């Protein structure tokens, strides 16, 4: 059966089409705010044409993400944790835990042998918007976020408790003459420390085969900073930003 997974995030909407355990098409568009439903439709049609199929070939459509209730043509919806764990186990059958770092939400979950989700932790409200913060700060500083290098020299520590404070600290560093790239490295370090608190909140850590997904997993500088704080290495799938959508599709709308 062909299943479509739709992950409606705060920044981007991702769609994957899965045919017999293989990804045959995918697409991503900016979610937007008020035009969310049309953007979702657009991403869905882009993915269908990428897969070379028409809408009636799709057996089921499963939605996840912050805007999952804005997808009106679904057969089921799953929460982000379920999607993340399904994706991790689908891509890596021996995965022990999964962490997802997106634009707005950070979550970590352990994966049980029988039951899928062992324990899960989502970010506190104060830890929200990590991805959004880095995206907008990079834009403000005129730095390309995807070009930030791991182990780049930073400009000193900035507040890692709150994105509002972080941004003010970052601008103060610029005001004191620091280089934008160095300030960006400081901001990435602060974000990594904050994201790590979510992983560290798992009471029974299972770090043998940890999987990192979500848009920030694409950023080498962020991943290296996060691994340094946590003290272990992640396994990162090829297109980590599509994992939520993959997980939704392979879950088939069922909850483990």
């Amino acid at each position, binding site marked *: 059966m062909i299943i479509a997974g739709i992950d409606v995030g705060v920044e981007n909407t991702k769609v994957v089409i899965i045919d017999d355990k293989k990804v045959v098409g995918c697409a991503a568009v900016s979610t937007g705010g008020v035009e969310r439903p049309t953007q979702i439709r657009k991403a869905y049609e882009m993915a269908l044409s990428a897969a070379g199929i028409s809408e009636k070939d799709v057996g089921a459509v499963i939605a996840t993400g912050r805007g*999952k209730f*804005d997808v009106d043509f679904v057969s089921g919806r799953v929460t982000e944790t379920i999607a993340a764990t399904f994706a991790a186990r689908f891509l890596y059958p021996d995965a022990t835990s999964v962490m997802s770092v997106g634009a707005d939400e950070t979550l970590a979950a352990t994966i049980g042998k029988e039951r899928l989700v062992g324990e899960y932790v989502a970010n506190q*409200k104060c830890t*929200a918007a990590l991805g959004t913060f880095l995206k907008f700060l990079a834009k403000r500083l005129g730095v390309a976020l995807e070009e930030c290098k791991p182990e780049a020299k930073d400009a000193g520590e900035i507040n890692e408790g709150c*994105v509002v404070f972080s941004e003010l600290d970052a601008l103060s560093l610029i005001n004191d003459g620091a280089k934008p790239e160095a300030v960006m490295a400081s901001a990435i370090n602060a974000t990594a420390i904050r994201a790590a608190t979510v992983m560290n909140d798992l009471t029974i850590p299972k770090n043998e085969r940890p999987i990192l997904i979500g848009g920030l997993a694409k950023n080498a500088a962020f991943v290296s900073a996060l691994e340094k704080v946590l003290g272990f290495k992640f396994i990162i799938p090829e297109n980590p930003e599509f994992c939520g959508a993959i997980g939704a599709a392979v879950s088939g709308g069922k909850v483990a």
Partner: protein
Amino acid sequence: MVKEYGKWPEFSQVSKEIDWKGAKLIAAGVDVGTTSAQAAILCDGKLFGYANIHAGVDFEKTAKDVIALAMEGSGMAAKDIGIISATGFAKKNVKFASKTFDEIHCHAKGARFMFGPEVRTVVDMGGQTVKAIRLFEWDRVRDFMLNDKCATGSGRNIEVLCAQLHQDITEIGSKSLETEKDPEPVSTTCWAFAGTETLGLFGRPEYRSEKLSEAEIYASHLFAIAWRVIGIIGRLSPLDVGEISVDGGLAFTGGLAKNPGITARIERELGVAAAKSDIDPMLAGAIGAALLSV
């Protein structure tokens, strides 16, 4: 080119009526903030040219650019300016300025210039900070209050939100006033909370079933910011008895002053109509800096 939803457009203008060559003293003020920078050029105390641009990472270059833009097309050159003074977050980086002034006095001075001598309370709402300033009847600052650190970035947060929602920053304020009654505000503590909550409102069943309108969501968000600004104004030492509700005694400056969704709510809660001016409220700091230098 992707449309910039979250930015006020850059602008500049040079007066055609004033003959700058005959001016005794040309003073320029530049206000380099975290988000945008403004310059104002005054010829013998009259506003001659002004400009507003988005701030870059090189604050000195930003300052140079905005001054150059404020005199563009007039034939005036940097050497013609008698004195340049700087204010704003990055004032210390404007190394070519002869004087620097703090933002409080600049906004107070600029607001009296723009809105007239009866202004007693100036509320500057910028990209990162909100300042409430109370003035004596004569030309002195009596008291001022800044936002606390948790309420930082009230202007910046609207920029980010507009970019995320693909909503034009110049329209969000008037759209938010299309509601009959204001809904409950989102978090009034922190804009990271407020932003997440507002984005969450778009995913609520009430929104999809049209019980909650787009205008009401903007109203919730802007009311939360207005609420915080009202708190800052409330901490100022009070005016003399009977003077609190004098119309025209309240003036808004800074980028948020151009957002009627904020200003109308503050006016409503305080029961005062704010003073009006033909000059863009973003320019108050730069005008004040130029006036203080002479």
